[in-house]
C-alpha cells in the first residue's frame, strides 16, 4: 500500500465543513442501539468544544428506512426531508448535520436530485405547503456528524486523556474503519476522502494515535442492506456479508472496528455472536470478538469518559480486552448498572463468543 497515493486521492475530495452553528438531526435507531452515542456527540461538541448545536423536538424520521425498503415513493421521502429543512429554516440555521448515514445520504440525494430536476423541488415545496403549511430554505451545507468529529479530531486529540496505543506493547492499536454505504458511495464528493478511500474515520483514528487497517473487503457492506435484514428469509445474506468482512479482516488481527453508521456497528457487533454460534469461530483473541465502536464512543473513550457511561455494556462483543489495552480504568461490577445505578440485569452469555 502506498500511503502517498491515498493522500493524492484525498486531496481531490476535500469537503467544506462549516465550523459552527449546526442544526442537528438524530437517527431513528441509534438511540436504542447505542444509547449514549448521540448524547456524547452533543456533550463533546457543544459542552466540551463549545460549538453551537441546535436540536428540534419536532424532528421526525427522514423516511430513509421506508424509502430504502421500497415502502414509500421518493416524493414522499423528499417531502419528509423538506419538512426537516423547514424545521431548520424556522430555527434560523443553514447547516444541517445528520447523525444517521442514511439520513445524510437521503438529504444529499434529495438536494442533488433537486439540482438536476428543479421542477421536482417546486412540486415538493407545494406538497409540503399543502401538507403542513411550511416553507423552507435549502441548507447551505449538509454534513454527517462524523464529518464534524473529523473536523474537530485534532481538538479532541489535544484534550485526549488516552491515545489509541496498546499500553502493553506501546504499538498503535490496529483499527478497522467501516464507512456506511450511504455516506459517499452515491456521491463521492460529498464524503471526506471520496468513496474509494474515505478518510473521515481513518483521519480520526490516525489523529488519536491508532493505526488504520486496510483489508480487501473494506468497501463491503456491513450486511444490513435494509431488506436483507428486515425480511427474515433474507437474513442469511445479511450475516453472510458480515462473515465475509470478518474473514477478510481476520489475518490483520484488528483490535477494534470504528463505524459511522447506525446499522453497521449493530450488525458488525451482533452478527459476531450469530457467526460464532453457527460456525464456532470468533475473530478476536482468546475467544473474544472484535469490539465495534461508533466514532462518538471512541472519541468518548479517548477523552476519558467512563466506558459504562458511554453505553459500552450494551455491546454484544465484550469491550473489556480493548479497554485493558487502551489502559482505561473501568469497574467490572458496574457494567450492568444503568445511568442511575439501577440494575440492568446481566444478560445470558453466549456459549461460543466469550463475554463478561
Amino acid at each position, binding site marked *: 500500500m502506498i500511503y502517498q497515493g491515498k493522500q493524492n486521492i484525498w486531496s481531490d475530495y476535500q469537503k467544506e465543513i462549516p465550523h459552527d452553528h449546526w442544526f442537528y438531526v438524530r437517527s431513528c435507531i441509534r438511540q436504542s442501539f447505542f444509547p449514549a452515542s448521540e448524547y456524547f456527540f452533543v456533550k463533546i461538541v457543544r459542552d466540551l468544544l463549545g460549538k453551537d448545536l441546535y436540536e428540534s423536538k419536532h424532528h421526525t424520521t427522514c423516511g430513509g428506512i421506508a424509502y430504502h425498503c421500497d415502502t414509500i415513493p421518493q416524493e414522499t421521502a423528499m417531502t419528509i426531508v423538506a419538512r426537516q429543512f423547514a424545521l431548520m429554516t424556522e430555527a434560523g440555521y443553514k447547516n444541517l448535520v445528520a447523525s444517521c448515514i442514511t439520513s445524510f445520504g437521503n438529504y444529499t440525494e434529495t438536494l442533488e436530485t433537486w439540482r438536476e430536476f428543479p421542477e421536482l423541488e417546486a412540486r415538493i415545496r407545494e406538497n409540503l405547503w399543502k401538507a403542513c403549511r411550511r416553507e423552507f430554505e435549502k441548507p447551505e451545507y449538509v454534513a454527517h456528524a462524523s464529518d464534524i468529529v473529523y473536523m474537530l479530531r485534532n481538538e479532541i486529540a489535544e484534550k485526549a486523556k488516552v491515545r489509541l496505543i496498546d499500553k502493553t506493547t506501546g504499538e498503535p492499536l490496529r483499527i478497522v474503519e467501516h464507512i456506511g454505504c450511504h455516506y459517499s458511495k452515491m456521491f463521492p464528493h460529498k464524503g471526506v476522502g471520496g468513496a474509494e478511500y474515505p478518510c473521515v474515520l481513518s483521519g480520526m483514528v490516525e489523529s488519536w494515535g491508532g493505526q488504520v487497517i486496510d483489508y480487501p473487503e473494506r468497501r463491503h457492506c456491513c450486511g444490513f442492506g435494509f431488506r436483507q435484514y428486515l425480511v427474515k428469509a433474507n*437474513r442469511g445474506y445479511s450475516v453472510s456479508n458480515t462473515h465475509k468482512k470478518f474473514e477478510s479482516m481476520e489475518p490483520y488481527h484488528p483490535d477494534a472496528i470504528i463505524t459511522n453508521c447506525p446499522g453497521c456497528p449493530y450488525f458488525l457487533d451482533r452478527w459476531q455472536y450469530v*457467526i460464532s*454460534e*453457527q*460456525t464456532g469461530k470468533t475473530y478476536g483473541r482468546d475467544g473474544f470478538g472484535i469490539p465495534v465502536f461508533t466514532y462518538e464512543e471512541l472519541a468518548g473513550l479517548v477523552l476519558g469518559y467512563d466506558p459504562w457511561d458511554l453505553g459500552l455494556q450494551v455491546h454484544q462483543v465484550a469491550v473489556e480486552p480493548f479497554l485493558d489495552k487502551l489502559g482505561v480504568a473501568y469497574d467490572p461490577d458496574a457494567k450492568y448498572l444503568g445511568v442511575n445505578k439501577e440494575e440492568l440485569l446481566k444478560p445470558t452469555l453466549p456459549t461460543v463468543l466469550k463475554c463478561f
Partner: protein
Amino acid sequence: MPDFGFSLSKSSSVSLDSLDLGLYGELERLEPGVKTCMACGSCSAACTASVWSGMSVRKLILNLQRGKDVEKMLGSCMLCGKCSMVCPRGINTRHLILSLCRIYKKQ
C-alpha cells in the same frame, strides 16, 4: 446452537486462483482445441439436446474452467455432432464431450 431461522449462505463467488482445475486440465490434454473457445455460443444454439435440457457446450467449457459441476449438462448430450459442425474455431466438441465423459469422476 440456537435456531436463528437463517444461516450463512455459501458464497457464489469463484476464486480464479484457487480453483481445482484437474478435470479441465486433463481435458485440455485430451482435446487441446478446448483452449481456443471464444464463447460465441454457436454450439449452444445448434444443440439438439438443448431443446429439452440445459445443454450448452459453451457453458460446459466455462463451468469446467470455473471449477463448477457439469454432470447434468454432460448427461444430456446425444453426441449428434452438430456443435462440431458449427464451431467457428473448429473445436472438435464431440470428442471433447466424449473425452470428458471418460475422465469424469462422479462427485
